[in-house]
């Protein structure tokens, strides 16, 4: 008996496989974490954090203001003297403790992150949390080996590299797309090098950073070494502009990055910026098509496309364009969108109503400018913030969807004929964070990778991260690198003259 196609598809429906919420205990309210204590904001302000997939209010969180920023910076300054004077091997042990506790509590943190951010549990469980722990492990090991990192050079006598020193208080502002992972990228190298930290998580995703404050408590980290200030852009600006902050680290939009670059002009503050991107994912005609399609999907639909290094521009060689697009559309039709806590979910919720509105507006602009829009048949949940995976074909380099960072699950497809044309089109952007190359020809990988103006190039893979590997952009994607030995540099100054440690 032949099954109708409707019956066939229902025959292969997955049963829901929700991860339990009971592993995480979210308090009805949270304070700021300053000098080892949870405390209310000086002006008593609070804000609500909601679950993007249900719009359920998860908790009420204290909202940091200027006075709180000042208090936290002073706490970090006070803690700096002792923390920076600790032997590196002791700092290392604190970081190893933190790494271990993160591993122990990873299920709890994964569920929490999924609730607060809206990303699938599959991603928090299998990508975010393992990487968070790995970053603390990696930088823990550096804490007592800084003499070998090569940043302690002294100009006066050509000293070989021993004894680099920390900068002081690091003011760190992180985005909502990878709340805990970005925290790890910022805090682990800062602490390993002997700096103390004031970190402002994004206003839509403050919870995992506050849970991290509890991890610091469990690890016995001295008071004031890590301070967490949930808040909005005003708190971030106050932190970046605080005269007693020595180092600014920011991950977020290029527009804010430029504002930060202006605000630190003329100061001694050291700055690193990880900003936007419009990554090109280049598929050559000899690419393994099925693998490339998986890579395209990972490149733009991982974390709902809310990734600065997303492969949001697909550049496909004209001779295989049809084949690739057909396969891609087939694959997109199998993606499952819905409850992020369901272990079978591929695409979760957009992080906030504001972000959803931005994505919708840019997608509408794409249509208005004449690009052709396509999405698989996809039912969106009735509550929460959702956007179906979307392709634009017939895109030219001048189109807004080919130029502006959308930061959502929207892929713009362009074509090319020759490798030179692919490189020219890939580089035709203000950004320079990431790129992908798909081809079976090794020499072409190396030649193209060489010519791409991007900080990370993935060949025959995409969106791979590792704590040992420097990450960061060219051009307006920002400056500085995070990860690897390079990630230490932003937190270290060359050793001072004798006797002036």
């Amino acid at each position, binding site marked *: 008996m032949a099954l109708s196609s409707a019956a066939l598809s229902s025959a292969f429906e997955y049963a829901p496989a929700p991860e339990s919420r009971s592993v995480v205990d979210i308090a009805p309210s949270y304070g700021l974490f300053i000098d080892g204590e949870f405390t209310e904001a000086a002006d008593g302000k609070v804000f609500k954090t909601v679950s993007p997939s249900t719009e359920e209010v998860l908790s009420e969180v204290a909202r940091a203001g200027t006075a709180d920023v000042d208090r936290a910076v002073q706490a970090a300054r006070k803690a700096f003297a002792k923390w920076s004077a600790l032997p590196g091997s002791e700092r290392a042990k604190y970081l190893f403790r933190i790494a271990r506790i993160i591993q122990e509590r990873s299920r709890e943190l994964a569920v929490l992150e999924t609730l607060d951010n809206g990303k699938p549990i599959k991603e928090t469980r299998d990508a975010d949390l393992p990487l968070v722990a790995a970053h603390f492990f990696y930088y823990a090991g550096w804490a007592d080996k800084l003499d070998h990192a090569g940043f302690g*050079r002294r*100009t006066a006598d050509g000293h070989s590299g021993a004894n680099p020193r920390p900068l002081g208080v690091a003011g760190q502002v992180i985005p909502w797309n990878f709340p805990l992972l970005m925290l790890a990228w910022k805090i682990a190298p800062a602490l390993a090098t002997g700096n103390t930290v004031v970190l402002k998580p994004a206003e839509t995703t403050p919870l995992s950073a506050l849970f991290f404050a509890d991890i610091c408590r469990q690890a016995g980290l001295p008071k004031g070494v890590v301070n967490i200030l949930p808040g909005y852009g005003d708190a971030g600006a106050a932190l970046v502009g605080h005269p007693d902050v020595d180092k600014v680290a920011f991950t977020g939009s290029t527009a804010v990055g430029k504002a930060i670059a202006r605000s630190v002009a003329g100061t001694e503050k050291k700055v690193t910026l990880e900003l936007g991107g419009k990554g090109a994912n280049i598929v050559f005609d000899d690419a393994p098509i099925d693998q490339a399609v998986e890579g395209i999907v990972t490149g733009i639909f991982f974390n709902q496309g809310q990734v600065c290094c997303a492969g949001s521009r697909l550049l496909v060689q004209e001779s295989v364009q049809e084949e690739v697009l057909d396969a891609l559309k087939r694959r997109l039709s199998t993606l499952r969108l819905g409850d992020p806590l369901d272990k079978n979910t591929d695409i979760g919720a957009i992080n906030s109503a504001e972000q959803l509105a931005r994505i919708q507006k840019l997608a509408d602009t794409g249509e208005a400018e004449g690009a052709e829009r396509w999405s698989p048949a996809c039912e969106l949940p009735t509550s929460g913030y959702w956007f179906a995976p979307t392709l634009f074909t017939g895109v030219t380099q001048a189109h807004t969807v080919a130029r502006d960072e959308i930061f959502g699950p929207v892929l713009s497809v362009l074509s090319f004929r020759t490798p030179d044309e692919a490189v020219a089109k890939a580089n035709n952007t203000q950004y320079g964070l990431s790129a992908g190359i798909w081809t079976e020809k090794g020499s072409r990988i190396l030649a193209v990778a060489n010519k791409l103006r991007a900080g990370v190039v993935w060949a*025959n893979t995409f969106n791979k991260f590792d704590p040992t590997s420097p990450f960061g952009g060219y051009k307006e994607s920002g400056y500085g*690198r995070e990860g690897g030995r390079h990630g230490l540099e932003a937190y270290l100054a060359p050793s001072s003259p004798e006797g002036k440690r």
Partner: protein
Amino acid sequence: MSTEQQNRLSVFKTYKLYVGGKFPRSESGRVYEVTDSKGNWLANAPQSSRKDARDAVVAARKAFGGWSGATAYNRGQVLYRVAEMLEGRRDQFVREVADADGISKSKAGAVVDAAVDRWVWYAGWTDKIGQIVGGANPVAGPFFNLSTPEPTGVVAVLAPQDSSFLGLVSVVAPVIATGNTAVVIASATSPLPALSLGEVLATSDLPGGVVNVLSGKTAEIAAPLAAHQDVNAIDLTGADAELARDLEIAAADNLKRVLRPQAVDFTAMPGTERLTAFLETKTVWHPTGALGVSGSSY
């Protein structure tokens, strides 16, 4: 014979800019008086305009592909060739530096020697910096992954005001050693050694446009460079604190890499900071196709 020599009128040199491998006068047609430390007239130097600055950026951009694409070995050879040419013109530079910096001939001789040695030092860095700041990353997965430094692009360099030659060489050589191209603003009061350096570069196998030398008012030339959307980085060594702040703000518009001014003793051995300040790190990943967990048969 001796009376003839006394009566002989020396031949003055018209100092010109060095842009795109050529020696233009300033587009503006302006010049300004350059004097020695005692106020004696030395020459009329071109007073560069905004247009000269923009032309220099165009030349530097045009040269970037070829220079950054040259092998590190080749760049080292070219830089060393510059040192050879400098050594050959030692007397000229000693004279110019003595006048420019207001120091004795013997002190100027030491300065020029140090500058030549500095240039040689940087020539040797071209094919080593990648090994110092790059490398393979031991990722936790079946991937091959390499980080390599690459030049950031066109760098605007404000040469130090008070070290007309050793300071100049110390800020220009590291920029081009790594494959960047440069638009250099010479010391405003003592531009002549810089303009003469242009003549040396022109005869040293250095492709035209890799280094472009402008003279004039530092603030006037630097402003359009700091705001220029096709300049990737700016070295503010020759700016005072107020100008440096203004230029850093302008540079934020396209997130130029900025090297802030700092007290530098140019006679001391430099570290790698001026090399790395204008480098990007590119990390390239590829799957290794790990052969499984069965292990080796050995």
